[in-house]
C-alpha cells in the first residue's frame, strides 16, 4: 500500500475491484465504513456479488480477466470529459514527456515485438531527450508525441459499447462507476483503490495495476490522504518477506540479484545505479552502492572488506535474461533437476497453480524439508490421492515450528507498518521458533564445512555472519538491529561523530565504503539508539490517522508514499482538510508526515521556480509519475488481452487475443483449452472469511471448520438449471488439467454475462481445502488452474480459466 489502513477513512470514493475486502480483509472494512459515514461513495466491481458489493453504492459485475478493458474505458471517460486533474498531471507526471518516434502501437502489438522470442525490444519505447539526456517535455500537453496525446489515441478504442461487450458489465453500471470515481479528479478530492489477487493473478496482472496507477495519476490521487494504490496483502508478513526478498530476483531492500555478466561489484553497482542529468531529479536509486555494500557488510561482517569486494563474489549469480520464479522452479523440479527442496511455512501442493504438476514434481526429489505447524499436503504428498508411497523415493523431514504468539519478533502489515510481537508462551512439545531452527541448522552446515578441507567453495558458508543468538537461543533483537545497521568504525557525518557499533540513525547515513552495515536499507531507522521503533504504542491524539508514534513504517516512518505530490507547486496541500504535508515557509521546512525528501517546494511563494527543489516522484530517474511505463515487458500502456484460457475466439480491441509475451511451459501437464466445448464456463478462485490460504492453519480448528466445512462451487441459478444441478448437490468441476468434487452452492450472486453476443457463465471456488484434513472436505481448487503467468512477475493466472461443471 502506498497509504495505510486507517487512511482509507480520508477517501471520498473507494473502489473495491480485484478484492473482497469485507470478507477477506474484514477489519479493513472498518475504515471503509468510516469513510462511507463521512460521505464517501463506495464502488465495487467483481464477477460475483459479495459482502463488499452488499455495502456498496454501485455494484458492477465483470467477467474475470477483463479488468483492463474496464479500466481502459475509465481512462477514456476521464479524457473525453476533461475530468483529469490538470496541474498535477502537467507538473508531476510524465504526461508531458515526448516519446521517441520509434514507439508505435498497431493491432494489439507495440513496436519492437519479436515473434520468435515473444519479447519486445523496449528501447523502442524511450523518451526523446535533449543533449544532456533529459526527457523533452511539453507542459501544455499538446504535442502529438507527448504521452498525454498518445494516451488519448490508445484508449480511443475503449468505448462503452466495446468495453461492455468484453467485460459483460452493463453500460449503465460502467457509467455509474466511471462518473463516481472520476469525480475525485477535482482539487481536494481523493479516490482510493483496494485490490488484491483478483488483479494480480492474471497474464496481465501487472498491467491491471498499472492501468489503475495511471488513473490515480490522472486524477491526482497519488500521495494524498485517502488516495494511493493499495494492495490488500494476504499474509500477515508478506510485505516484510517481500521487503527482505525471499525471491529469486531481488536482494533485501529491492536490490537486484546479480547477473552472471556482473563479474565485479563495481560492474554490479554500475548496472543497477540509474543516472540523471536533470538537476531537479532526486534520483534516489543513485544511492544504490551505499545500500548494496551495507548489505554485504551484514551478510559477511568482518569478512567483507574492500579487498574482497565485501564478499560480492561469494553470492550466487543468475544467468542473464533467465527467470527462476515459482513456475520455473516447479517446472525444473518436474523435470527432475533438483535433489533437495525446502517448503518452509508454505504448502505448495495446494497453493501453486496446476497442483497436479506441483505434486508430481515433488516425487522427483531425493529429499524435502517441510517446516510447518500442522501436517499438510506438501509434507505428506507421498501418501496423497492416487499416490503409492512404495514408489516415492523422496525422504521427507517434517520440522514442527512455533506459532506467532510463541516467539518474539516483528511483522510488516500491508500499510508498511512494522509491528513488534511479544512471546506469550512456549511452543508445545519440542516445537521451535523458525528462527531457532534456522540458527541451529546453519550452524551444523557450517560445522560440516569447517571440518571438510576439500569442501566445495566454503567461503560464503564459513564467512556468513551468524551470531544472532543469546545463550544459544535465536535473538530477534540482535537480528533486528543488524537489519537496521551499525557503524563499522568511528565515522563523522554531517558534523557529528558516530562510534563504531552505534546503530545507524537512517539510510541517509549509509555509506558505500564498508563503514556501515545494514541488512536492509529500507528498514534503516527502525531500531536505533532511541530503541525499537516497531514496539512503539502511542496513538495519535488528532490528525489524519497517520499515528506516527505507533510502531514504525518504512521508509523512515513515512506513512504516505509520494507525499510531495499531495501539495501544489508552492507546497500547499491540494486538500486542506486532510493535509499530509505542507511547507512552512517561515521556518523553511515541511510539517506533517515525513516528506519524500526535505527539499523545498517546486515554486517560491511568488510562483518563481525554486532551483533547490526536486520533483516529487523521487524513485524514478526522471522524477515524474509514469503514465507511460516503458519498463514493462508487455508494453508501456496496458492493453486488453484475454486470459490464456477464455470463452471467446476474438478480441474486439485488436487481432491479438492473449498477451503475446505471457510465459507458459511445455510439459505434458501444461495444457490449455480456449473455446473448447468441453470446458465452456469461466472459472475463478476466491477465499472465505473463515479460512486462510490453503487452510493449513484453519482447517484443523473446530470453530472455523464447522463454519466452512468443505469445498464448494458457487454458480448462478441459470447455470444450475442448465446442468440440472440443485443447491447442495455434489458436483464435479473439471478443467483440462484436473478436477475436484465440490458441493454446489446455487445463488443469485453469480449471473450469466452477455459477452460478444453470447451468454457466458462463470463459477467460483474457494481454494482453502486439501485432502489431508478434513476427510471428504475436498481438495485444492488449484488442481484446476493453469501454470502460465504474467511476463513481468510470472505470477500464475489462477483467477481466470475454463472449466466444466456437472453432477457428480
Amino acid at each position, binding site marked *: 500500500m502506498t497509504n495505510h*489502513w486507517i487512511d482509507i477513512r480520508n477517501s471520498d470514493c473507494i473502489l473495491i475491484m480485484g478484492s473482497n475486502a469485507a470478507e477477506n480483509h*474484514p*477489519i479493513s472494512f*472498518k475504515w471503509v465504513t468510516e469513510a462511507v459515514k463521512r460521505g464517501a461513495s463506495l464502488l465495487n466491481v467483481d464477477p460475483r456479488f459479495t459482502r463488499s458489493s452488499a455495502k456498496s453504492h454501485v455494484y458492477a459485475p465483470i467477467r474475470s480477466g477483463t479488468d483492463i478493458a474496464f479500466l481502459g474505458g475509465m481512462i477514456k471517460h476521464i479524457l473525453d470529459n476533461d475530468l483529469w486533474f490538470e496541474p498535477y498531471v502537467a507538473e508531476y507526471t510524465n504526461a508531458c514527456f515526448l516519446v521517441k518516434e520509434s514507439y508505435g502501437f498497431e493491432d494489439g502489438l507495440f513496436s519492437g515485438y519479436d515473434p520468435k522470442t515473444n519479447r519486445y525490444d523496449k528501447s523502442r519505447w524511450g523518451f526523446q531527450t535533449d543533449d544532456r539526456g533529459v526527457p523533452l517535455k511539453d507542459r501544455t500537453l499538446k504535442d502529438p508525441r507527448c504521452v498525454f496525446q498518445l494516451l488519448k489515441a490508445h484508449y480511443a478504442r475503449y468505448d462503452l459499447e466495446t468495453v461492455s461487450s468484453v467485460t459483460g458489465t452493463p453500460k449503465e453500471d460502467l457509467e455509474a462507476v466511471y462518473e463516481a470515481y472520476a469525480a475525485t479528479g477535482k482539487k481536494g478530492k481523493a479516490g482510493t483503490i483496494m485490490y488484491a489477487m483478483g488483479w494480480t493473478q492474471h497474464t496481465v496482472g501487472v498491467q491491471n495495476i498499472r492501468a489503475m496507477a495511471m488513473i490515480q495519476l490522472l486524477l491526482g490521487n497519488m500521495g494524498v490522504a485517502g488516495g494511493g494504490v493499495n494492495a*490488500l496483502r494476504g*499474509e500477515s*508478513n*508478506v510485505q516484510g*518477506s517481500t521487503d*527482505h526478498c*525471499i*525471491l*529469486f530476483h531481488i536482494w533485501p531492500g529491492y536490490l537486484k540479484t546479480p547477473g*552472471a555478466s556482473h563479474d565485479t561489484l563495481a560492474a554490479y553497482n554500475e548496472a543497477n545505479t540509474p543516472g540523471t542529468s536533470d538537476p531537479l531529479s532526486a534520483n534516489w536509486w543513485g544511492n544504490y552502492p551505499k545500500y548494496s555494500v551495507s548489505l554485504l557488510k551484514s551478510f559477511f561482517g568482518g569478512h567483507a572488506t574492500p579487498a574482497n569486494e565485501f564478499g560480492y*563474489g*561469494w*553470492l*550466487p*549469480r543468475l544467468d542473464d535474461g533467465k527467470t527462476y520464479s*515459482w513456475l*520455473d*522452479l516447479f517446472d*525444473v523440479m518436474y523435470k527432475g533437476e533438483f535433489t*533437495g*527442496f*525446502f517448503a*518452509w511455512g508454505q504448502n505448495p501442493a495446494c497453493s501453486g497453480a496446476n497442483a497436479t504438476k506441483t505434486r508430481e514434481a515433488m516425487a522427483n526429489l531425493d*529429499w524435502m524439508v517441510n517446516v*510447518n*505447524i*500442522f*501436517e499438510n499436503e506438501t*509434507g505428506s504428498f*507421498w501418501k496423497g490421492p492416487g499416490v503409492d508411497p512404495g514408489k516415492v523415493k523422496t*525422504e521427507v*523431514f517434517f*520440522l*514442527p515450528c512455533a*506459532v506467532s504468539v510463541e*516467539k518474539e*519478533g516483528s511483522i510488516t502489515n*500491508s500499510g508498511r507498518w512494522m*509491528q513488534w510481537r511479544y512471546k506469550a508462551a512456549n511452543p508445545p*512439545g519440542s516445537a521451535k521458533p*523458525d*528462527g531457532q531452527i*534456522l*540458527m541451529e541448522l546453519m550452524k*551444523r*552446515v557450517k*560445522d560440516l564445512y569447517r571440518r571438510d578441507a576439500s*569442501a566445495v*567453495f566454503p567461503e560464503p558458508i564459513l564467512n*556468513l555472519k551468524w551470531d544472532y543468538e543469546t545463550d544459544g537461543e535465536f535473538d530477534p533483537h540482535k537480528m533486528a538491529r543488524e537489519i537496521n545497521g551499525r557503524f563499522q568504525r568511528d565515522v563523522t557525518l554531517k558534523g557529528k561523530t558516530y562510534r563504531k557499533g552505534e546503530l545507524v540513525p537512517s539510510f541517509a547515513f549509509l555509506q558505500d565504503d564498508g563503514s556501515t552495515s545494514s*541488512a536492509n536499507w529500507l528498514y534503516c531507522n527502525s531500531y536505533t539508539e532511541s530503541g525499537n521503533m516497531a514496539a512503539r504504542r502511542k*496513538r*495519535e491524539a488528532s490528525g489524519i490517522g497517520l499515528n506516527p508514534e505507533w510502531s514504525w513504517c518504512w521508509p523512515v516512518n513515512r506513512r504516505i508514499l509520494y507525499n510531495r505530490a499531495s501539495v501544489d507547486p508552492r507546497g500547499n496541500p491540494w486538500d486542506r482538510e486532510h493535509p499530509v504535508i505542507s511547507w512552512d515557509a517561515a521556518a523553511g521546512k515541511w510539517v506533517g508526515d515525513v516528506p519524500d525528501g526535505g527539499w523545498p517546494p517546486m515554486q517560491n511563494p511568488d510562483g518563481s521556480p525554486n532551483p533547490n527543489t526536486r520533483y516529487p516522484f523521487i524513485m524514478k530517474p526522471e522524477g515524474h509519475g509514469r503514465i507511460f511505463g516503458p519498463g514493462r515487458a508487455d508494453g508501456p500502456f496496458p492493453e486488453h488481452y484475454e486470459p490464456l484460457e477464455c470463452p471467446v475466439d476474438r478480441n474486439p480491441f485488436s487481432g491479438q487475443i492473449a498477451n503475446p509475451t505471457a510465459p507458459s511451459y511445455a510439459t505434458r501437464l501444461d495444457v490449455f483449452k480456449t473455446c473448447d466445448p468441453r470446458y465452456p464456463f469461466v472459472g475463478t478462485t476466491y477465499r472465505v472469511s473463515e479460512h486462510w490460504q490453503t487452510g493449513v*492453519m484453519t482447517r484443523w*480448528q473446530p470453530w472455523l471448520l464447522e463454519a466452512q466445512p468443505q469445498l464448494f462451487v458457487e454458480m448462478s441459478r441459470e447455470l444450475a438449471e442448465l446442468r440440472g444441478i440443485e443447491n447442495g448437490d455434489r458436483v464435479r468441476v473439471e478443467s483440462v488439467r484436473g478436477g475436484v468434487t465440490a458441493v454446489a452452492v446455487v445463488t443469485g450472486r453469480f449471473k450469466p454475462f452477455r459477452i460478444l453476443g453470447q451468454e457466458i457463465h462463470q463459477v467460483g471456488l474457494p481454494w482453502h481445502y486439501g485432502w489431508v484434513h478434513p476427510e471428504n472436505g475436498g481438495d485444492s481448487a488449484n488442481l484446476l488452474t493453469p501454470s502460465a503467468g504474467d511476463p513481468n*512477475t510470472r505470477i500464475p493466472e489462477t483467477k481466470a480459466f475454463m472449466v466444466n461443471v456437472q453432477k457428480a
Partner: protein
Amino acid sequence: MEISRRDFLKVTGASAAGAAVLGLGLDMKPLRSHAQTLKIRHAKESTSICCYCAVGCGVIAHTEKTGGGRIINIEGDPDHPINEGTLCSKGAALSQLVNNENRITTPLYRERFGTEWREVSWDWALDAIAERIKGCRDRSFTRKNDKGQVVNRTNGIAHVGSAALDNEECWLIQAMMRALGLVYIEHQARI
C-alpha cells in the same frame, strides 16, 4: 480525558477506584464486578499482531501465571489503532490455533519408499538435513555457466517460503539460502 484500556483496568482494579471511576463520569461498578469473575483476571498480558491477513490487527494473549504458562485466551487489542479491539472470525478463533491437539510437536521423518511417518529427535533430523545439504550442494555446485561466466551457485536445491515468518526470520532464511548458493528462492509473494 484520554484513557487506554490498560489504564482503565488499572483504575478499576485499584482499591481507591471509586473516586477515579467517578472521574470518568460513568458508573463502572457492574463492569468491575463482572471483570473479577473473568478467567483472565490473573493472567499475564502480551500484545501481538494477528497472524492471518496483512491488516495487522493487534491482539492480546493471556497466559496463565501459574501452572504450565498456557495461553488461555486471545482477543482483540482495544488500544490498537487499526482494529480497536475488533477481530474477524479467524482472529477471534486464534486461541484454537495455539491450543490445538492436532499440532505436530516432534520432528517427523519419512524414509525413501516408506509408508508412514516416524518420530525422530531434533539432533538426528538437523544433522541428517545438514549432511544432505552439503552432499547435494557439493555435487551440484556450479562455478561457471555455459558461457564461462562465474556464477557460484547450487543448482540442486530449491526453496519456497515464507510470508508466515517474522521479519528477522525472513532475513535469516534468505541469507542462509543465498550463502548455500541457491538461486531458486521463492515464496508466497510470487503467487
